């Protein structure tokens, strides 16, 4: 956190000054470790073992926050008797189809779940085939997750052998301090200290928070990493309370915004799923299958209809299904890496790359570049000439002779972009806070905002459309934003107002609860509804922090509903009283008959703690006054996920796809559902291969940003970290005959790169399963271009394209490699060496 989010880290420093204890778990001793009370080195890719052992420690010593767990989680829920655990199947859950390498989640459901829902899901998968099953990720269910029984059978004594609590106990029993030592390389003493600290610091009086970043997500079991932490935090009562939570530190200014208003293939704004060809023929089909009807997700028709109205305006009517048919349909994985394979295969012809640099920034850079070289046309928009724009004249494949400029047919348009000070608009930061940026000045030369580009591109396209049916969605599209200034810049505030939503009277809406399913409201992103409340750009509010309480509700605007802590109903006990004075946050004010506290309540302001829903209640009315998790169909925190995940209802430790270590917990070595693309452009290191004996992890440095286009051209940053380096322990350096400052070549099946060696005891050899395992670390900020004052080999070229089956994110944090002294071979020699590694 100190490395990549230094300014956010000020709050950790401040907490520490007030007595908080900070543990840092990381493969390397980083700048964060230097300021932590305890640093624990861990083998990259083994976190579920550690977290699982913490869960086991909590469960076997009954250290859970029982009152919280009973009231707010599904611990007491009884699971179907068809369910089989990894304990029973040596690392697999019930429902795995070896043929399709995917799960049928039917057997994971709650006992008594209507056959229809589960069966429907199953039938579809059979019907849609393998590709369709793959899309059964959580995003297919939108923000609400999968539907589950709102009032399932439960055993509040937690003794029923099939209740979630008991299943959890059995499942995590094998995650012990010994396995932590054996697989993570963490000593029993260190584990005991961590376990003692987090349990002692949780409960009524205290809360513990976990902070993570892509060190947890970029794995083939990335989603399950987060799940494991969620289970631990729910058991300890650390969700929805001040000082609790699992905090994702996101690495880009508006990466949160870019999933809220997604440029992602599988979702629409507000986490509404993209319709699927086989499941969602009509709006009604779609709504029936896009998650449950209870909880706030139960209002999904209002969210979806308002979106369709925002896009197709008056043309969207009740009669024509609000132009639901204008939405294109998915038939499987259309994600980033799949797209790249489509480029190589020639199905993808045109490519827009906007403020992104896949030629050096994505895993398996070679595959990316082979894809780019096979396009008809490519549009790159950026501040500098990024490698993605220039690969045809200076890419590494030219040096090896695999490509020749004259033979690359890609037509390339480079359009310079406006910087963040040359346009106005909102970023959504890592805490869901929208902040409006004022424009400081006009962009220079041909530089334009992306808003300008897409608005005018849309305008030009709409000028060219025909009367064909295919073009109807374009013809009917609402695309009339006011233009400003000599460049005819579309008004960003007008776009934000459309996102925030307007009512039947044309006035801006103030909350998503005002959205209607009848087409009378329009809203571009339901979770952002209210960002333009009272016709005021709420994201532009800037009442100074020092004039407000710590929640600072009048600085910017957080979705949803300007709420700062999600699920904050859980900050009070079931009766609505604070769990303790020390941790008081939201509470029920009986006198005024409403929830009070420093934040916006996460549920209806006047819903009494003793409210119990009547039969057949819908949406939020179906949740009782003690259901804090308002987006879930049952309002509970899911220790056990009966649906929604493609790789199991509970996390299990699987080794990274490329690992030097055998999974000693189960016979199943790696995530059974993970995705790979075995083809010549993206070969893989064999499992536990002696050719690739070292663990490789990648990371960022404080001084640079991502693949370097925003830092390497800047003298003040480039001079601080001028060269790509590889961090390794003195022991490994000695084994390899390397000295500090030397050159080394790092090799995987994909390619080899060179880096300077930084020999440091901050990277320590680990003892894993009785033998020494060495890890090395590589930052990934270098490339050959981007106008960089400093350049270097591309770390991402080394990485495998092995993806998490839920979200298709690649495993960049744990793979294997070889290290050789000296610089890498050049040209054909490099290819020859790689041949030897792959086949020799």
């Amino acid at each position: 956190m100190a490395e990549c989010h230094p300014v956010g880290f000020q709050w950790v420093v401040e907490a520490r000054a007030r007595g908080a204890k900070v543990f840092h778990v990381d493969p390397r001793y980083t700048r964060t470790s230097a300021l932590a009370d305890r640093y624990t080195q861990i083998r990259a890719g083994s976190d579920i073992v550690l977290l699982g052992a913490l869960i086991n420690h909590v469960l076997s010593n009954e250290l859970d926050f029982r009152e919280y767990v009973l009231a707010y989680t599904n611990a007491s829920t009884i699971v179907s008797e068809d369910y089989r655990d990894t304990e029973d199947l040596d690392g697999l859950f019930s429902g795995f189809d070896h043929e399709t390498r995917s799960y049928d989640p039917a057997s994971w459901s709650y006992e008594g779940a209507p056959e229809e829902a589960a069966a429907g899901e199953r039938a579809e998968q059979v019907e849609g085939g393998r590709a369709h099953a793959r899309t059964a990720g959580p995003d297919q269910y939108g923000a609400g997750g999968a539907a589950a029984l709102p009032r399932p059978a439960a055993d509040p004594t937690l003794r029923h052998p099939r209740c979630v609590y008991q299943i959890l106990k059995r499942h995590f029993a094998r995650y012990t301090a010994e396995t932590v030592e054996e697989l993570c390389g963490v000593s029993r003493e260190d584990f005991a200290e961590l376990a003692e600290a987090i349990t002692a610091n949780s409960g009524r009086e205290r809360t513990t928070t976990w902070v993570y970043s892509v060190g947890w997500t970029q794995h083939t079991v990335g989603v399950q990493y987060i799940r494991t932490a969620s289970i631990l935090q729910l058991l300890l009562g650390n969700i929805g309370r001040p000082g609790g939570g699992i905090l994702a530190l996101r690495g880009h200014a508006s990466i949160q915004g870019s999933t809220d208003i997604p440029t992602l293939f599988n979702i629409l704004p507000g986490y509404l799923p993209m319709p699927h060809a086989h499941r969602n023929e009509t709006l009604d089909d779609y709504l029936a299958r896009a998650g449950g009807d209870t909880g706030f997700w139960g209002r999904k028709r209002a969210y979806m209809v308002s979106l369709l109205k925002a896009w197709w305006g008056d043309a969207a009517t009740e009669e024509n299904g609000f132009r639901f048919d204008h939405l294109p349909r998915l038939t499987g994985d259309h994600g980033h890496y799949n797209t790249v394979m489509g480029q190589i295969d020639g199905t993808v012809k045109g490519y827009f790359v906007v403020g992104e640099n896949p030629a050096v920034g994505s895993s398996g850079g070679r595959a990316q570049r082979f894809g780019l070289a096979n396009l008809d046309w490519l549009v790159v928009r950026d501040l500098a000439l990024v490698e993605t724009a220039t690969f045809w004249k200076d890419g590494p494949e030219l040096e090896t002779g695999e490509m020749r400029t004259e033979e690359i047919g890609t037509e390339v348009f480079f359009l310079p972009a406006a910087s963040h000070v040359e346009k106005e608009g909102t970023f959504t930061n890592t805490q869901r806070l929208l902040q409006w940026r004022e424009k400081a000045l006009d962009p220079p030369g041909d530089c334009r905002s992306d808003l300008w580009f897409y608005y005018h591109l849309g305008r030009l396209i709409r000028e060219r459309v025909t009367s064909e049916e295919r073009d109807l969605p374009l013809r009917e599209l609402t695309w009339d934003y006011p233009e400003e200034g000599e460049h005819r810049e579309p008004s960003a505030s007008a776009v934000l107002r459309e996102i925030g939503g307007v009512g039947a009277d044309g006035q801006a809406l103030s909350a998503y609860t005002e959205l209607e399913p009848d087409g009378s409201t329009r809203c571009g992103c339901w979770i952002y509804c209210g960002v333009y409340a009272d016709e005021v750009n709420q994201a532009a509010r800037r009442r100074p922090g020092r004039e407000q309480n710590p929640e600072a509700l009048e600085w910017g605007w957080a979705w949803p509903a300007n709420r700062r802590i999600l699920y904050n109903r859980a900050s009070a006990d079931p009766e609505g009283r604070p769990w303790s004075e020390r941790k008081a946050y939201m509470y029920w004010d009986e006198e005024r008959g409403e929830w009070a506290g420093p934040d916006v309540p996460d549920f209806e302001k006047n819903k009494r703690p003793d409210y119990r829903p009547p039969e057949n209640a819908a949406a939020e009315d179906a949740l009782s006054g003690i259901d804090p998790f308002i987006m879930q169909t049952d309002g509970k925190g899911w220790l056990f996920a009966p649906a929604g995940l493609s790789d199991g209802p509970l996390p299990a430790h699987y080794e990274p796809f490329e690992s030097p270590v055998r999974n000693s917990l189960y016979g199943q070595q790696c995530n059974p559902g993970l995705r790979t693309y075995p083809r010549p452009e993206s070969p893989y290191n064999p499992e536990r291969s002696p050719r690739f004996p070292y663990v490789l992890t990648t990371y960022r440095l404080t001084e640079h940003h991502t693949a370097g286009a925003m830092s390497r051209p800047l003298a003040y940053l480039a001079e601080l970290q001028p060269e790509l380096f590889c961090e390794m322990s003195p022991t490994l350096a000695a084994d390899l005959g390397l000295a500090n400052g030397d050159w080394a070549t790092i090799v995987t099946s994909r390619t080899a790169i060179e880096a300077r060696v930084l020999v440091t005891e901050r990277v320590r050899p680990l003892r894993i399963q009785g033998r020494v395992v060495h890890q090395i670390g590589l930052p990934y900020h270098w490339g050959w271009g981007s106008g960089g004052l400093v350049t270097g080999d591309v770390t991402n070229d080394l990485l495998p394209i092995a993806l998490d089956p839920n979200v298709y994110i690649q495993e960049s944090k744990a793979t294997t490699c070889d290290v050789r002294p000296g610089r890498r071979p050049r040209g054909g020699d490099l290819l020859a060496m790689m041949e030897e590694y792959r086949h020799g």
Partner: protein
Amino acid sequence: MAERMGFFTDTSICIGCKACEVACKEWNQLPDDGFLFQATSYDNTVALGASTWRHVAFIEQQPVWTPEGETGDPLRIGPDGRWLMSSDVCKHCTHAGCLDVCPTGALFRTEFDTVVVQPDICNGCGYCVPACPFGVIDRREDDGRAWKCTMCYDRQRGGLEPACAKACPTDSIQFGPLDELRERAAGRVAALHAEGRTEARLYGESPGDGVGGMGAFFLLLDEPEVYGLPPDPVVPTRDLPAMWRWAGAAALTMVGAVAVSFLGAAVGSGGGSGRSAGSSGSRAFEQVRGVRGVLVRGVRRFGGFGGSPPAGWLPMRRFQGRGR
């Protein structure tokens, strides 16, 4: 004069992010320092200099791990690891060597009691460079002038805090009235000692030290030299009166030696054959020949090595400026 302003750099909460280095360069529009990988932990800017006015040092103190015996188990040697980071800066000394020796008045003491170079005055004589006991100030060769931290004098003139202190994410760099900072620092050391971190100590806060106390002082977690700081710096001009006395003695020795040489020659030869007495307007010389005796006596008095030079003959006080 306004209150004396200063920096307190608390290295115990420095995260080595180098925001101070960059914020300083952006504000002061400094050139880069070259793009060389140094392989000295995460430090690639090496030291303070003409173009780097804040410099973050990285000191790795980690337990050593070696494979032990045939099992190859990592064996840990040494105590718990530390990675010390510290942002160094000009000390703005009470008795500043650079300021004392600057011949042009380019360096001066501001109303905030800081020491600043005036780039419109500096002629690049370079004398300040070796005069600094901390190696802070340096000459930028392509520009020819000496440069160092100004504690953002221009910003202070507008009531703004220096760029580095403003940027510092963890408040490791604190800016304010020096007296307040000293108080705060003493409290911080006490707090760390109470936590058992007895290695914490202040550097440069004492007005009694060899530079009369630093306007920018530090909380360190190890000996100063580990961070590249001198353990007991002294302003070179502390010994200046003595230096002048010795130089005066040497000057008189010269006069004596020359006089003796001529007197000896006169005694030996009874006057040179080339002499043409009374020629070439030497009336004035005739009148001062009596000086000879004085010179000889002078040589006798100050001529030897090792004796105490005469004290207090330089009118130093008049030009010393206000005392402290």
